[in-house]
């Protein structure tokens, strides 16, 4: 498809000191082209086109000049012009596209998806319902991490993490993290979680990305286990011409201005436990454990800093392209949190009652590295091969200080600080991925592409340790003594898990053209072998002698107490190891696997470029199972589930005109149980037993999507759409009578429950006028699921002497994490002439369920959250830029509550309201942050 060049000239009155040259540049579809370079080649006059494609060059000397307009992906435009004393206006300079046909997930040099306008083109021409955010938009925004970026996309919220570690999972269209998957360059990546398959987005620095796509409908050539959608992070490719990128910033998290940062020496940590070093029969002694990593230090100055570099170049007549980009990041964050753990009354009213208050402060000392290397080689006109490798490394040394107060009574003086604990947790995650892919144009009609990938994810938590002390008010009269906690509360564990994937993908396409219509028949397959293993060993310590108190000169009142110790740091304490051989919690020591084989066939039919229909089906065969490494008597050591599913899908795109489309899509998908849910684990908690469910079934869903979209000028957009999802056999955790499963107890286990419904609507609006832009999106989601809850009541409510029993009762609620209303509003300013950009972004997330309770009417909700962020950039010259980004200007806090009235006694506790107000179960405050940086872009 060739596009013609168009020219139009008009004339204005001249500027006094030289003339003015103005114009508008359009792309091949007559839409404004933003950011095109406009220059008068033998002068040093140049500019770039604005948000509506317009440009102005002032002070043009009279005479003949060569006007050159260029933009990546388009053939450059050159024209000799004659400038007199009057201004020249050149309208509608249309550039010619230098690409071949666009298909989804291709890496062929085509429209640069890293630009804002490129991302709109991707959305418009995509076969799936999709939203795209480009690297350019990310650079202009207040966001730095992928999680922050994705949050601004319509229909997406992030699951908030109370400890502020940055761990973030996307909730797409109200569907919790189980229902979505994460891709890098179109391929699934393994998870470093020990039980589940979700991947946290905080592992991915946004500087390594070309763009982020959120795909909300599936086509047969995509993996079939998503319901909300998929987040695809497309890494930077070797560029079309030489590219040098550098970025660096320093910043601070404001919560640390008033609080010095506490950390611990993670270098002291033993990477392996005594169990692994010496074998299962070895009895560890205190000499096998280090102590320096259990002593906290503090520092007053705890900034964030970051640097990233990228270099890309093409060689050998542009046949070989290389890109290397890397990032390094150091961050100090803090979260101030309080938590009340609720219990419920036993009289049938199921009202929440509070007895403990935990005040916590989390210090996260985060170090992150990322490296992306991509090499592509054009073997010949018809064959291209590409190799990419990605390394991501995230280490968080987290120190959590906690003070737990037992709320005994109504008067604040009755409350006793009971426990102080420090938790030292180093979490080190790594993901490696190597992908080799190639595309072959076998003939005019046949194309073949394939990918082979090896990925590995690993998470380690060496010496995850708790140092717990209790307050005692009776050993010394009128004084609080701090004693090392008994009962094995002091514990140290070593935990590792690994997930490895080997994936092979093959796609074949046959194109049949007749005059007006094009039919592309595609088929292909995927095979993935996934193996995981996990291991944990725990040691518990008791103080020996039992009384060890803080303060070298501590002495108990009772002179009969002769056996005691004193300490002022962890290293002083004498412990006895309760389980010197270590406890290896059975079920978490396991290997599991999930092998998937898939084939698909689909037809992509285009009728006169007006109607595009994709229809087909994918068949996936699953083999998911586990092997317990130390099974107990009576426990099934190995088990697996195998099944196949046919997953049909269809997408219709009807172009009302060359600026707008209507889309209708349908897909049927499955969600598999998580790796750990089908393992027959049994753990006793205080009030119930937790059990796995090997009989757990996959979830099956039907999804329909209707969308109307208008792309009026290059970057403008109006989208309105609606979706409906029917989720069959959703997996939820419930309390139920264990006697059905051979356990004499109330058990909590994952089960499939009935049917859930989720429907909603999304609105997206982007408009630019010269230098100003506004972006609004809003989604409304409604979901409903009915599950079993527990209710404690008297057997006979009329008879106070009848027994207290626990019964099951059905309750409907929305899906966890689904907010009814989500909105984003951003104001943008992009000053082309003065090179100054700014963005003010506002995000609203309505109330949603944070934690589903086992008990009737006791779900914990999160209050609506408002966040305001700001960013500003100034171009110093064509290559250098300085910027400022500020987040959470409103200093918003998260708050969780139960929609039940707080009783009069509990209402007197800290953080609670008046009697009758909702019961507050927690608050987390992460605070605002800022960063100041410099960017270089050649």
């Amino acid at each position, binding site marked *: 498809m060739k596009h013609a060049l168009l020219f139009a000239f008009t004339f204005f009155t001249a500027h006094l000191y030289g003339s003015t040259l103005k114009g508008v540049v359009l792309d091949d579809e007559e839409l404004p082209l933003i950011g095109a370079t406009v220059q008068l080649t033998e002068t040093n006059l140049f500019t770039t086109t604005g948000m509506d494609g317009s440009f102005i060059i002032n002070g043009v000397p009279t005479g003949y000049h060569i006007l050159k307009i260029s933009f990546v992906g388009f053939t450059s435009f050159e024209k000799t012009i004659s400038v007199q004393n009057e201004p020249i206006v050149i309208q509608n300079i249309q550039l010619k596209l230098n690409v071949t046909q666009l298909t989804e997930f291709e890496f062929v040099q085509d429209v640069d998806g890293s630009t804002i306008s490129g991302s709109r083109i991707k959305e418009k021409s995509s076969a799936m319902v999709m939203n795209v955010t480009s690297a350019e938009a990310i650079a202009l925004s207040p966001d730095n991490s992928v999680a922050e970026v994705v949050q601004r996309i319509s229909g997406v919220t992030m699951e908030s993490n109370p400890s502020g570690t940055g761990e973030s999972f996307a909730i797409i269209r109200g569907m919790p993290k189980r229902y979505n998957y994460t891709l890098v360059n179109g391929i699934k990546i393994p998870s470093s979680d020990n039980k589940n398959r979700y991947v946290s987005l905080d592992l991915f620095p946004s500087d390594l990305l070309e763009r982020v796509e959120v795909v909300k409908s599936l086509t047969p050539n995509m993996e079939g286990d998503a319901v909300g959608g998929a987040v695809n992070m497309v890494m930077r490719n070797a560029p079309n011409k030489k590219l040098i990128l550098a970025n660096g910033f320093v910043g601070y998290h404001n919560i640390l201005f008033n609080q010095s940062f506490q950390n611990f020496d993670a270098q002291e940590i033993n990477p392996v436990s005594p169990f692994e070093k010496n074998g299962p029969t070895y009895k560890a002694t205190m000499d096998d454990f280090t102590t320096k990593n259990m002593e906290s230090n503090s520092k007053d100055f705890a900034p964030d800093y970051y640097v990233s570099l990228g270099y890309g170049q093409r060689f050998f007549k542009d046949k070989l392209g290389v890109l290397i980009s890397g990032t390094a990041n150091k961050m100090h964050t803090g979260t101030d949190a309080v938590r009340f753990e609720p219990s419920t009354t036993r009289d049938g009213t199921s009202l929440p009652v509070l*007895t403990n208050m935990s005040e916590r402060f989390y210090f996260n000392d985060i170090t992150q590295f990322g490296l992306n290397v991509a090499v592509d080689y054009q073997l010949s006109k018809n064959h291209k091969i590409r190799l990419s490798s990605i390394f991501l490394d995230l280490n968080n040394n987290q120190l959590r200080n906690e003070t737990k107060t*037992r709320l005994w009574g109504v008067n604040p003086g009755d409350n006793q600080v009971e426990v102080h604990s420090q938790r030292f947790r180093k979490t080190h995650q790594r993901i490696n991925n190597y992908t080799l892919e190639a595309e072959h144009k076998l003939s005019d009609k046949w194309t073949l592409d394939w990918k082979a990938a090896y990925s590995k994810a690993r998470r380690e938590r060496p010496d995850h340790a708790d140092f717990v002390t209790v307050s005692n008010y009776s050993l010394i009269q009128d004084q609080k003594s701090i004693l090392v906690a*008994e009962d094995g509360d002091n514990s140290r564990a070593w935990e590792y898990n690994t997930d490895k994937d080997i994936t092979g993908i093959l796609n074949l396409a046959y194109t049949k053209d007749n005059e007006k219509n094009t039919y592309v028949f595609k088929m292909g397959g995927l095979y993935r072998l996934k193996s995981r293993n996990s291991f944990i060993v725990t040691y518990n310590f008791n103080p020996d002698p039992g009384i060890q108190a803080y303060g070298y000169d501590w002495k108990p009142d009772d002179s009969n107490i002769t056996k005691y110790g004193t300490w002022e740091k962890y290293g002083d304490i004498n412990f006895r190891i309760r389980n010197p*051989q270590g*406890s290896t919690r059975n079920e978490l020591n396991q290997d599991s696997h999930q092998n998937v084989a898939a084939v698909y066939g689909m037809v992509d039919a285009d009728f006169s470029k007006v109607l595009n229909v994709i229809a087909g089906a994918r068949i996936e065969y699953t083999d998911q199972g586990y092997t317990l490494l130390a099974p107990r008597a009576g426990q099934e050591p190995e088990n697996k589930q195998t099944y196949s599913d046919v997953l049909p899908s269809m997408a219709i795109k009807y172009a009302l005109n060359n600026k707008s489309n209507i889309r209708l899509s349908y897909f049927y998908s499955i969600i598999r149980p998580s790796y750990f849910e089908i393992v027959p684990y049994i753990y006793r908690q205080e009030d119930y037993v937790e059990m796995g469910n090997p009989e757990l079934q996959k979830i099956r869903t039907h999804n329909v999507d209707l969308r109307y979209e208008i792309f009026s000028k290059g970057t403008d957009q109006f989208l309105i759409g609606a979706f409906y999802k029917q989720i069959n056999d959703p997996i939820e955790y419930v309390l139920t009578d264990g006697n059905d499963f051979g*356990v004499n107890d109330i058990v909590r286990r994952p089960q499939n429950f009935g049917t859930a419904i989720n429907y909603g609507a999304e609105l997206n609006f982007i408009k630019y006028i010269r230098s100003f832009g506004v972006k609004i999106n809003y989604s409304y989601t409604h979901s409903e699921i009915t599950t079993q809850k527990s209710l*404690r009541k008297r057997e006979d409510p009329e008879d106070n*002497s009848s027994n207290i029993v626990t019964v099951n009762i059905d309750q409907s609620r929305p899906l966890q994490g689904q907010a009814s209303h989500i909105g984003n509003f951003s104001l943008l300013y992009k000053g082309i002439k003065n090179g100054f950009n700014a963005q003010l972004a506002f995000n609203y997330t309505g109330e949603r369920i944070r934690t589903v309770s086992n008990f009737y009417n006791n779900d914990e909700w999160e209050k609506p959250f408002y966040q305001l962020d700001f960013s500003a950039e100034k171009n110093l010259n064509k290559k250098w830029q300085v910027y400022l980004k500020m987040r959470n200007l409103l200093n918003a806090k998260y708050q969780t509550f139960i929609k039940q009235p707080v009783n009069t006694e509990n209402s007197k506790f800290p953080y609670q309201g008046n009697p009758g107000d909702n019961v507050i179960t927690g608050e987390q405050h992460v605070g605002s942050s800022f960063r100041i940086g410099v960017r270089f872009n050649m």
Partner: protein
Amino acid sequence: MNKKITLLGLSLALMATTFTSCTKDEEEAGPQFLELTAAGPVSGKWEGNSIVTITEDVVIPEGESLTIEAGAQVIFAGDNLGTAEAPEFQVRGNLYILGQEGNMVTFSVEEANQTEANRFMGLWGGIQCAATCGELAINYAKIEYAGAPAGPNSIFVEQGEDEGDPRYAIIYGNLIGKVAIHNSIIQNTTDDAFRSLGGQLSVVGNTFAYVGETGGEALNIKSGVEGDMAYNLFYNCATNGTKWSNSGERSPQTNCTSYNNTFVNCGWRRNKEGRGASVNIEKGARGQSYNQLIVNCKYGVRVVGGDDEADLPNTSVDYAFYFGNEQIMIDEFYPTHGIFTSADSPNDIYGAINENDPKFVDYNVATGKLENLDYADYDFHLAGGSLALTGAKTNFSPKNGALVIGGVTYTNPSPSAHFGAFGSN
């Protein structure tokens, strides 16, 4: 030839299987001991003159029974004492330990290991009853030095407790089962002496001493239990003597009557505050506490309120006799972390420091929290003139009149007019 059977030869022959009684030479005077070892599945009967050495787990299989006759000694030994591999006595069927007055059955360790240093070390794994254990009877037995950490294959872990935690001396949990512990001594345990997760219960006339290293109750009753705990001596326990709760919410709701027990010097070995030191009722359980004699304990009878609230309309506590020799004890006769006050128990007897001396026949109540004295050296009967000899409540009945276990009737005695477990000599 002598018809005497060589002891050692017999022990070799009886390894790892059920064993039957052996003949004795009837002319022999004095006791003769049969030294045996046992491992793996056991059932049938262990006779009164057996000394059974156990170095690895034994198990009474489901559906089978083991009776241990008066005088038998069960000794836990071997290299694994005190570790996760320490042997435990697993009961999947029924166990009847039938000692007699003056001729007890002992579950202990070799004499060389019976030291004060080992008091809380937890050398062996306790009597671990699985959910299929229908009947457990322990009469005139001495069970001591149990509490080794649990390994992955322990019934302790099967019952849902954590690997690595110290095993209780006795754990039981069968909602339709029956347990009677009478006239026994359970002492020197690392954690709980007896924990129940269900079944009918009768615990009468025992001594629980030195229970819990830094925590642990003598009788820790969870949901699904109905029964009685009476006439026991609780001496120097880390936390409570009798505690019952409906935690786990099994059916039936836990309903216990604790009466005529003597509590001395309990609650001092627990670092966390407020957890109790004599009687504790919590988390939706119901029941009664009467006629308790509570001397020098950290806390008095505690009924829990708040979210862990006991079933208040169906809980009554009264007729407690308190003595304390320090102000902190006096202040906590009515625990500040409990919901009941003296108004709820109008018939309690309590006073100031050293007031209301119960006048034990041989125990000096003024001497405080001594750590190393052996209760067996004392006599907790009440001397003449003791205020505790009369005034207790007699017009109530135990929860269960009696339990019939293994054909033997274990009666819950009627309440007495005196406070505590022992009246006059």
